[in-house]
C-alpha cells in the first residue's frame, strides 16, 4: 500500500487534474520501484484521475521520459544524436559496455546499472555526453568514462 500512498500524494499535489497527466506520471515514476510505470500503476492512476486506461498507456508509450520497463538504480543514457556521433560517442559506448560487462539496452544482473541510448538532451557543447540519473557528464573519452563508472560504483555499490 505504501507505493499507492506515494502516488496519492503526487495526485493530491496536482489536485487530481487530469490535464497534468504527463507531469503526474513523471513524478509517479520516480516514486515507483524500478522507476517505471507498471500496468498496475497505470491502472491506478487512470482510476484516480477518472481517465481511460488507454489514455494513460498511450501517454506512457509515447513519451521517452516515461518507461514501461524497470531500470537499474543507476540509469546511464548515452546520447546517440548527430553531434555526439561526430564527437566519437562510440569510444564512450565501448568503454561503458566494457566496464559494466553489458550491452547498450541491458541492465546488470545486480540491477545496479542500466545502459541506454538516447536522443540529444541539449548538451552538444560538451559532446559526447551521458546522463546519469538525469545528471549530465560531458566531454567524455575512454579514460573519463572509465573513471566515471568507477566513481558510480563507489557511490552505489559499497
Amino acid at each position, binding site marked *: 500500500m505504501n507505493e499507492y500512498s506515494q502516488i496519492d500524494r503526487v495526485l493530491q499535489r496536482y489536485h487530481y487534474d487530469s490535464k497534468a497527466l504527463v507531469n503526474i506520471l513523471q513524478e509517479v515514476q520516480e516514486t515507483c520501484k524500478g522507476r517505471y510505470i507498471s500496468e498496475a500503476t497505470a491502472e491506478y492512476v487512470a482510476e484516480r484521475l477518472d481517465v481511460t486506461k488507454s489514455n494513460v498507456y*498511450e501517454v506512457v508509450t509515447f513519451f521517452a*521520459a*516515461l518507461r514501461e520497463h524497470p531500470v537499474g538504480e543507476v540509469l546511464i543514457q548515452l546520447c546517440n*544524436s*548527430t553531434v555526439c556521433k561526430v564527437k566519437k560517442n*562510440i569510444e564512450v559506448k565501448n568503454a561503458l559496455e566494457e566496464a559494466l560487462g553489458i550491452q547498450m539496452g541491458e541492465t546488470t544482473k545486480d540491477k545496479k546499472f542500466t545502459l541506454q541510448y538516447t536522443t*540529444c538532451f541539449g548538451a*552538444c557543447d560538451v*559532446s559526447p555526453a551521458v546522463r546519469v540519473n538525469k545528471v549530465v557528464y560531458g566531454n567524455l573519452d575512454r579514460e573519463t568514462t572509465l573513471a566515471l563508472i568507477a566513481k558510480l560504483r563507489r557511490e552505489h555499490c559499497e
Partner: protein
Amino acid sequence: MNRIQQLITANFDRYDGKDIEAYIRLGGFTAIKKAVEQGSDYVIDELKLAGIKGRGGAAYPTWKKWDAGRRRVAEQKFVICNADEGEPGTFKDREILKKDPYKVIEGMMISAYIFGAKKGFVYIREEYWDIQKTFKKAIEKANEAGYLGEGILGTDFDFTLEVFSGAGAYVCGEGSSLIESMEGHAGRPRIKSPRIGEKGYLGYPTLVNNVETLAGVTRILEMGASEYARYGTEKSKGTKVISVSGNVNRPGVYEVPFGVSLREIVYDVAGGVENDRPVKFLQLGGISGPLVPGSALDTKYAYETLDEKGFTVGSGSVVVVDDNNRIIDYLVSVSDFFYHESCGKCTPCREGKRQLTRLLKKFVDGTARLEDVNAIEKVANTMKHASFCGLGQTAPTAILSALKYFMPELWQLVEEGVHENVAEGEWK
C-alpha cells in the same frame, strides 16, 4: 563589425538567475513598464521596426503574429513560452533560461499584456529539470515582488505563470503537440485550421513563442527598436543567439549580429576547427536543417543570404563537421533521430522514415545500387511535400542537401560496395 555582440545576452554572468533585485538593478522590468505606459500599438510598432522574427525555427515576423492575436476576442486567452528546445545541436535557449530567466519572464508578461492573457505556461523540456527548478523559484520571487499576480505595476493587468515539464518528445516542440501534451494526451500534432492562435489550450486562443523571441522582445523595448535595428543587415536586423558545436575548438552559445559570415562564426567566434582540419560541412538550424558544404563558408549568416542558397537560420544551431567524417554516417544518424521521433500519425512520415533508414543502411553495408539513389530522392520528396507536420516535412532536408553537394561521395560507396558497419542505435 564586431563578431560577438551582447544585446539579448547582455545580462549573462551579471546576475544570479534567482536574484530578482539584481535583475531590477540591471534595468529589469523597464520593458514591461514601457509596454503598459505606451500601449500595445507602440509595442507592435517597435517590434516591426526591430524586424524580429520567431526564433523557434519558423522565422515568422513576431509583430504580425502578435498583431493578429491581440485582435481576437475570447473569454480566456493563454500565452506559452516554448522551451522544449529539442533540435539536436541546439542549446541556446538553455543558456538564456539559465542565465537570464527574468528576461524571459518579462517577455512573457509583455506578450500576455498585448495578447490579453491572464495565464501563461513555460513549457520546459524534461532534460532541463534543473532549469525547471530555477524557474519555479524565479516565478515565486516575481510573485512576492508583485511582478506577477494581480494588479501588476498598479494597473489592472493580472498575470500568473506556471512551469510545465516536457517528457522527452521532439515533436512536442510543435505548438499543437505541445498543447496536446499539456492537456494530458500523447503529443501528436492537431489538424491545422483552426490554428492554435484561434483555438489552442483548452480551445482558447493561445500565443506560443520561443524563449529567445521573448527575451529579444524584452531587450528591444528596453533599448529601443531603432537602436537594436542598427545591428545586423538591412533585411535581417539585430542579432541572433547561436549554438555552435561539433568539431570546433570552442563550442558554445554566442550572440552574433546578422551578416557575419559562416567562416567568421567557425574561425573567429568558435576558435576554428579541431586539429586545424578543413570544414567538410555545417548543419544549420538543427537536425531538420540543410547541410552547407565547406565551399559555402563565405555565405553571410542572415535570412536573405541563407534563403537564397536554400540554407536556413532555423533554430540557430551551427554544427561543424570536419573531413574525418563520412557523409553517410552523418545521414544515418539524422535518419535514426527522425525514425525515433516521428509520432506515426501520418503515412508519408511514418513510412518514409522507415524507407529512408533502410535505404541509407544499404550505403553503409555496401549493398546500395544506382536505383537506390533515385529511391531516396523520391521518398525524401514525398515526405517533404505530403507530411502532415513540420517534423516529417523537414526530416529529409539534410538528405536532400547531401544529394546536392555530396553526390560523388555517395556514388563512390555504390561503386566500392564498402563493407563496414556503424554502431546501430537501439532505441526505446
